[in-house]
C-alpha cells in the first residue's frame, strides 16, 4: 500500500497511544482517499474519539505516523494542523457561549490567525458575505446576533459545523454529529452534512447505522484500539467478527 501513498490524503500508520500502559489505540493503520467519506464505528471504548484526537493534535501519540498530504501531523501544534487543512468537530457542541453566532463564525473565518493579524482584522464585505452564506446553510441566519449560550443543543451543533465550514478544511472530522438531536433536527442535519461532505474528505464517528449507510464511502470498524474490519458498509455488516463485537448487540 505504501507505494500509492500519494493517492491518499491521510495516511495513518502504526498509530499508538498509551495512557499509563493502557493502549487506547494500538498499531492502527488506515488510509483516506480524497473526497472519501470514511465512517469509524465500533463499540464504546474502541478508541474512535481518541483516533480523532490524535489526528488533530489534541492528544499526543506514543508512536506511529499520521501524514496529511505528505505532512507529518504528529509533530505539529493544533493550530498548525488546522492551518494545514484539518478541521474537527467535537462530540459535545463546542462553541463560544459568550459570543454571538456572528462572532463565533467570524473567529473561525480563516484570516488573521496571528496576534497582530487579529488586531488588524476588519469585518469587511467578504467576511460578512461569507458569514451570511454559512449562516444560511446552518439554518441560523436569523440568530446571528444571539449569544451562542442561548441556542438549543441542535443549533449549537449546527453552529459548530458552520464554524468548520467557514474554515473550509480539506479533511473534516466529525464526532457523532447527530447525537442528542431530535428527529426533526436529525433529518435537517443529515441533509446539511450531505451538502458539506460533497467536495472534501471526511471522517465521521457515528452510531446511527441508518445514517452511516447513507453517507459512508467506506467503513472502518475499531475494537479495543485495533482495526477489526474495513470496507464497504455491506462488507463490514457481513463480517462475522463485526457482528460479534458490535452490530450483533
Amino acid at each position, binding site marked *: 500500500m505504501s507505494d500509492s501513498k500519494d493517492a491518499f490524503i491521510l495516511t495513518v500508520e502504526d498509530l499508538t497511544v498509551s495512557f499509563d500502559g493502557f493502549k487506547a489505540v494500538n498499531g492502527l493503520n488506515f488510509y483516506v482517499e480524497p473526497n472519501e467519506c470514511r465512517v469509524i464505528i465500533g463499540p464504546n471504548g474502541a478508541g474512535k474519539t481518541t483516533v480523532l484526537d490524535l489526528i488533530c493534535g489534541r492528544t499526543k501519540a506514543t508512536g506511529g505516523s499520521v501524514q496529511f498530504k505528505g505532512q507529518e501531523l504528529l509533530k505539529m501544534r493544533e493550530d498548525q494542523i488546522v492551518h494545514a487543512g484539518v478541521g474537527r468537530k467535537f462530540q459535545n457542541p463546542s462553541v463560544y457561549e459568550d459570543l*454571538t453566532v456572528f462572532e463565533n463564525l467570524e473567529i473561525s473565518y480563516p484570516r488573521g490567525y496571528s496576534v497582530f493579524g487579529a488586531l488588524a482584522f476588519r469585518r469587511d464585505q467578504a467576511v460578512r458575505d461569507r458569514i451570511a452564506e454559512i449562516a444560511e446553510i446552518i439554518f441560523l441566519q436569523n440568530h446571528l446576533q444571539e449569544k451562542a449560550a442561548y441556542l438549543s443543543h441542535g443549533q449549537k451543533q449546527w453552529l459548530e459545523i458552520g*464554524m468548520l465550514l467557514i474554515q473550509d478544511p480539506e479533511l473534516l472530522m466529525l464526532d457523532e454529529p447527530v447525537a442528542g438531536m431530535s428527529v426533526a433536527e436529525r433529518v435537517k442535519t443529515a441533509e446539511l452534512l450531505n451538502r458539506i461532505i460533497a467536495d472534501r474528505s471526511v471522517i465521521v464517528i457515528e452510531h446511527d447505522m441508518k445514517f452511516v449507510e447513507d453517507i459512508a464511502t467506506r467503513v472502518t470498524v475499531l475494537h479495543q484500539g485495533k482495526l477489526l474490519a474495513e470496507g464497504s458498509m455491506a462488507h463490514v455488516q457481513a463480517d462475522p467478527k463485526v457482528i460479534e463485537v458490535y452490530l450483533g448487540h
Partner: protein
Amino acid sequence: MTDFPSMATGRDGRFLNRTEMLGAAALALLVFVLLPLALDPFRLNLFGKYLTYAFVAVGLVLCWGAGGILSLGQGIFFGLGGYALAMFLKLEASTPEATAIQSTPGIPDFMDWNQITALPGWWQPFHSLTFTIIAVVAVPVIFAFIIGTAMFRRRVGGVYFSIITQAIAAILTILIIGQQGYTGGVNGITDLRTLNGWDIRTDEAKTVLYFVNGALLFGCLALAQFVRRSKLGRILIAMRDREDRVRFSGYDVASFKIFVFCLGAAFAAIGGAMFTLQVGFMSPSFVGIVPSIEMVIFCAVGGRNSILGAVWGTLLVNWAKTTFSEGFPELWQFGMGALFIAVVLVFPDGLAGLWKQHVEPLFARLKPRPSAPQPAE
C-alpha cells in the same frame, strides 16, 4: 452577563457605544475637571497616586476579565516601571555637588552608605532620559514576555499561573531588599528631586503631573478599548471560556496570552513610573504580594469586565482606604478583606456589573429610545 459589547459592536466603525461614551465622558469630567477644582494640591496628588494604580487595574481587565489570566504579580511590572524612572531621577539628584559630603560623591546616597565606591555598570544607561523612558516600558514588557513564554508555552494556566506570578513578586521583593547597595533596599529609592532640571516636588509640578498622568491613563484606556474591540478581544473571551477549542479554530493560544500579559505589564509599568514621579519615591512595598493582590481587588471591585469600571473601582477603594485608615487604621485591613469577599460572593461583576444591572435599566425606562437597535429575533 459580561460587559463586553457584543450586540453593540455588531457594526464596525463605532469605537464606543452610547453607554461607553457617556461613561468615558463622566470619568473624564471627574478626573480633569471635578477633582482638580474640588481638591487642594495635597489631596489632588493623592488621587493622582490612586490613578497610577488604575493603569494596573485596566491591564488586569484585559488579562483577567477578558483573557482569564489572573496575575497576582502585577506589582512586579508596576515596580519595575517605577524603579526604572526612580533610577534616572536618583542619578539626577546625586550630582557631585549635592553629594559632596559622601565618601564617594556623585553616586546615590544609599550606595555610599553600603560602601559602594563606583556606580554599577547597569545603572549607567539611566543617566539618559530617552533610555529611561524606553526602559520604563521595555524592561517590564521583556520580563513579562519571558514569564509568559515560559508559562504559556508549557500550557501552565489557571491557579498555577497565579501562584507562580505571586512567587515571582515575592522573589523580586526579596531581591530588591537584599541587594540594598544597588537598589536602596527596603527604603527604596528616595529623595528624588528633579526631572531634567524641573523640580517635581512643588505643588505646581504635582498638578501638572496629575494631568499628564490622567492623559496617559486615557491613552491606555483608548488602547485597551481598541484591543477589546478588535477580533483579538473576542479571541480572548473565547479563550477564557474554551481555551481548547480556540486552538482548533486555528489560533496559537500561547501567543495571545503572552501578548495580553505583556500589554498588561506595559500599562502597569507606565502607572509605576507615574507613581514615582508623583509620590517622589519607589520602594519594594509596591512590588510584592500585598500590593499585587490589592490591585486585583481594585479591578474586581470596579468590575473585571469593564475598563472604566476598573478605574472607578480603583479610585473608590483607595479613597475609602485613605478615609477609613485615617480614622480606623486597624480596621481597614478587615474592611478590605470583607470587600473582596463581598465582590466574589455578591457582585462578581463588580460596580460595573451593578451599574449595568440596576442603573442602566432605570435610564432606559426614563428615556425610551425607539431608535435603539433591537436584538434580532
